[in-house]
């Protein structure tokens, strides 16, 4: 009697064959190493980054000969000396660092209520609205958004036109440091909200209710319950906003009017304007070092945030 076709369907046979192939490639005795295999793509990616960094480090030790526009065969620390002594680079580094700190602080302050409302609201409509408003900016690139601010805040922009209606002469609202900070905060806000929201979701509402029932007003509840429990979110969001602001290129370039360069703009200038890739590589390495030190400091002072590294197992 012929076996029913459904007894052992074709797709099962295909699966068996695939399992056989998989077992041949990755025998069962290697099973314990499987989790490490999963790490391979990440290791490869990081490896590529490291390779790039090694190349950048190599370039940073070579100086440009402006009679041939070739780089020296010998290594020297001349580029590092220039980067650390020329006033331009110090000014730009200082400006970037201060901006990153200000933008991080302001963004976290603005992001928290937004994230809190989004997580805690009882209205699905409001939550959806806040989510859409959060994700919309991601569909619009950073450059387009910065140009949008030029249109809104420019001399003939909407804001100045509105001011003109009440008799106030047009004023320069863009092409200065505050405009750059403003643009960065607006750009970073969605990132910070996205990082804060999971941390706030993880705080049981009952804890806030318990604090209230024990007599704490909302300020005390916020300070003693919500804020400490939201710390991983603050740290994660802070690290992301800090590093993105520190390394930003487009907002200072567009809203700064050319006179508010950040380190990334200075790196661009060296690579593409003066053709001095050695000095550009030096500045790039120093930016990586500065960012790493800052992140290391944050982790050392406040822990690893949402990464929750070092937390003991329950």
């Amino acid at each position, binding site marked *: 009697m012929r076996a029913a076709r459904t007894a052992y369907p074709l797709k099962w046979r295909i699966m068996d064959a695939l399992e056989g192939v998989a077992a041949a490639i990755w025998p069962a005795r290697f099973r314990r190493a499987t989790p490490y295999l999963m790490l391979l793509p990440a290791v490869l990616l990081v490896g590529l980054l490291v390779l790039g960094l090694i190349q950048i480090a190599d370039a940073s030790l070579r100086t*440009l000969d*402006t*009679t*041939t*526009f*070739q780089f020296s065969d010998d290594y020297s620390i001349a580029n590092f000396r220039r980067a650390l002594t*020329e*006033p*331009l680079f110090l*000014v*730009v580094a200082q*400006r970037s660092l201060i901006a990153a700190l200000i933008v991080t602080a302001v963004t976290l302050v603005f992001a928290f209520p937004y994230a809190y409302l989004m997580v805690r609201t009882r209205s699905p409509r409001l939550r959806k609205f806040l989510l859409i408003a959060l994700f919309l900016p991601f569909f619009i690139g950073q450059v387009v958004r910065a140009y949008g601010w030029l249109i809104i805040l*420019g*001399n*003939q922009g909407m804001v100045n036109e509105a001011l003109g209606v009440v008799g106030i002469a*047009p004023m*320069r609202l863009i*092409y200065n440091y505050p405009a750059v900070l403003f643009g960065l905060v607006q750009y970073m806000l969605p990132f910070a909200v996205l990082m804060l929201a999971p941390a706030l979701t993880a705080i049981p509402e009952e804890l806030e209710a318990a604090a209230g029932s024990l007599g704490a007003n909302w300020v005390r509840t916020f300070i003693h319950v919500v804020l400490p429990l939201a710390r991983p979110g603050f740290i994660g969001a802070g690290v992301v906003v800090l590093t993105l602001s520190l390394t930003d290129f487009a907002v200072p370039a567009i809203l700064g*009017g*050319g*006179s*508010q*360069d950040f380190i990334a703009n*200075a790196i661009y*200038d060296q*690579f*593409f*304007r*003066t*053709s*001095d*890739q050695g000095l550009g590589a030096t500045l790039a390495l120093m930016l990586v070092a500065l960012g790493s030190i800052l992140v290391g400091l944050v982790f050392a002072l406040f822990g690893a945030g949402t990464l929750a590294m070092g937390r003991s197992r329950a």
Partner: protein
Amino acid sequence: MKRFKPTLSHLSRRTFLQVTAALGGASALGLRGAYAQEPEKPAEIIVRAWGGSWVDSLKAGVSDSFTKMTGIAVRHDLTEDNEIQPKVWAAVAQNRVPPIHINWDTTTNATKSALRGVTEDLSDLPNLANVTDLAKPAGLEGFPIVNTYGYVYVLAYRPEAFPDGPPKSWKDLLDPKFKGRLAFYNDGIGFHFPAQVAGGGKLEDIPGNMQPAWDFITKMKAQQPLLGEDPDFTTWFQNGEIDAACTISTNAREARKNGVKIEWVVPEEGAKFDTDGLWIPKGLPENELYWAKQYINHALTKEAQQVWLDGLGLPGVVPGLTPPKDLVGDPSYPTTEADFKRLIRVSSKIQVENESEWFSKFKAIMQG
């Protein structure tokens, strides 16, 4: 029977000249079939260009007529000149085919590529016989670049902002009423040399002593100028963000074409005169190199230059061009020796060797 297929490796200079001369003649007569013996035609030639009115003019003057003549499409790559440079350098260093066939570049930038040895020699272009001295890159052997026109970094201004008449000097921009209403290139290009004069220095002292220039630029910094690139100037004038700028006359003329009331002058201290050119990166297949050379050769014909440079409003390198009507007698369109005397020209070699330092110095002042 072996069919003869000429390639540049077989092509002597003499043969090349004969072929290109025949090509030139044929093109003049409109004989499209005359290319039968030419190297294989690529589907397209990629020419790096600046955007806006710059590429429109190139297309109208050179690219379209080249395509009509040869049947080869011309694609304009609008990657910034500064950004294409490292890509081309890397391609040549790694023996890869470069990403473009022809680079439309500033002579200063192109000189860097020539000094690095990544440019093809263009000395055998037949139409070089008909060009002025301006076409020859100063301080370089042969023709690694062919300069195709000159331009002036004028003082462009909105007449309403100067009710007492046009500015006569760069020093006029130091008037407090222009605070925040001025613009310069973000690396100071075009302004270093007039600033040297306006600051009380001498042009002969460039590059040895440019302190007067830095002093003058420091004074200008107090005016909180905007710093940008070519497209920014047109936009800023159009949006009423600025009253005056040191910019290439083409940008000012473009703003005027767009309905902005704008004029320009060469101030008493002078204005920087410079050139742009075309060059071909090394590493192209031989047939593509041949047609890329044909493109540049075509760009040096009087017909192509007339249309191209009418669009840009700039003086070319072929004698007998007619200035656009709106630029007859204009200081930004120098044609006579007297015109050139008012302009400042510093050799590309000096500029290339010192540019990095000048840019850094300008930036240090403006970013401070």
